[in-house]
């Protein structure tokens, strides 16, 4: 099957659980080079998303993501709220009215989402942000689409790329967000936003498996 509203809802509901479970780890990553709230922020936001989806799931995957993005913007705050919110809203908008997106459609929409994040936050790959996980993930998805890989496997490849990208933020020096204030002292720590991106994409791959 493709990426449809049910998969979207299953993903985001599972994401709420996963983020709650991993909130402490994400906050601790943030405490090392930021202000220690990343896990709490996402936990609050995804709990609100899950609550909203429990009231009723929109008909299309695009609408699910737009709703989620809006909900994140309205409840997360911090840097990650507008960024993740824009990611999902832009991805959802790009999905249009489709009932079920195949890998190619998903890759195209996700590209639009990541571009929205890059535009809003001004970060490039290597700045030690969520972009360092998002960007390889979207590339993996595009490559999977070209190779004709089925959805579940494609999402696993994307998650894997995000996980590697997150790991690769460890040695980097942050140039965006709060961690950039630390200069060279930001080196040696995983970026919390990249880590949460990897987590969210892993949950998506699991939901699709």
């Amino acid at each position, binding site marked *: 099957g493709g990426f449809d509203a049910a998969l979207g809802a299953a993903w985001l509901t599972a994401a709420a659980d996963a983020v709650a479970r991993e909130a402490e780890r994400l906050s601790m990553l943030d405490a090392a080079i930021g202000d220690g709230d990343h896990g709490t922020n996402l936990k609050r936001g995804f709990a609100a998303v899950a609550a909203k989806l429990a009231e009723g799931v929109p008909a299309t995957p695009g609408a699910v993501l737009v709703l989620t993005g809006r909900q994140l913007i309205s409840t997360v705050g911090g840097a990650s709220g*507008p960024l993740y919110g824009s990611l999902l809203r832009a991805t959802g908008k790009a999905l249009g009215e489709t009932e079920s997106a195949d890998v190619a459609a998903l890759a195209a929409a996700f590209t639009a989402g990541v571009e929205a994040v890059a535009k809003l936050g001004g970060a490039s790959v290597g700045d030690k942000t969520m972009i360092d996980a998002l960007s390889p993930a979207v590339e993996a998805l595009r490559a999977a689409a070209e190779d004709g890989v089925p959805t579940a496997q494609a999402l696993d490849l994307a998650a894997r790329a995000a996980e590697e990208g997150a790991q690769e933020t460890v040695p980097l*020096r942050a140039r965006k967000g*709060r961690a950039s204030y630390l200069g060279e002292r930001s080196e040696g720590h995983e970026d919390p936003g990249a880590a949460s991106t990897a987590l969210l994409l892993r949950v998506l791959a699991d939901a699709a498996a």
Partner: protein
Amino acid sequence: MKMLTNSPETVVADALAGLAAAHPGLRVDAERRIVLRAEPTRPGKPALVSGGGSGHEPLHAGFVGHGMLDAACPGEVFTSPVPDQMLAAAQAVDGGGGVLFVVKNYTGDVLNFQMAAELLEDEGIEARTVLINDDVAVEDSLYTAGRRGTGATVFAEKTAGAAAELGADLDTVARIAERTNAACRSFGIALGPCTTPATGRPGFDLGENEIELGVGIHGEPGRRRAPFAPADELAEIAVDAVCADLDFGGDAMVLLNGMGASPLLELYIVYAAVVRGLGKRGVRVVRNLVGEYVTSLDMPGFSLTVCRAEPDLVDLWDAPVQTPALRWGR
């Protein structure tokens, strides 16, 4: 860590209940998480709206009132508020004169206020944003998110708020806030970390004999560590940092700000050294505040903000103000 809280999730809501009970001059909309003046905006007066993470009290809600802010949006602890709050606040206080957002330069605050400003435009309400970025501990370069906003917020909210009260239009009020920000420089030193209710753990570890130079106001580590030193030396480090960055000319206004856990007794000790240090550099302090204005929960330490005393800014500083945290001339 022991704290006077009920649960991490309810910290802001519980505190807003107390704020509402304590200050009859404020109206707290608990539902929408905004703090307003009890009295509506005078028609035509540009409205000042600020906000940011909680944990910096009295900033921002403590500066809502005659002569300063019209509304404040408190976020979760150390987390920017969301655009919905800013939009609701702006709509509630717009008196037809437009809205000035006073935004401290942190990625979260900037992005959320930016979204709010866009939404506000759709509503047909004129909005300006002034970015506060006075913290010299951070290089303003391509390699950072730019300088952080800290003590200059108090100066900018005060001068711009006074200008608005005196009848200035939105552009003028925005310009006053920008000029005030440009005239300010700050530097903070922490003797220890602070602990957020959410994590319950100190934001960083410091040795028995270490301090954080150039610390931020969110429990984030500073730019570098240094050995602990007497108050006079720490004051000198801070004075040096701000004076190296800006020539204050002859006269200045000074905020010697406690970060949360340093006794007022100690702040006075630092302040004496700050005045001496500025004096040595030919800077005379003509106005001052010593106390807790931009805190970081329970962080021990201080930040120094020096504002060049341009004559009209001093007049605006002296104008009447009546808020929970600042009150004079009225």
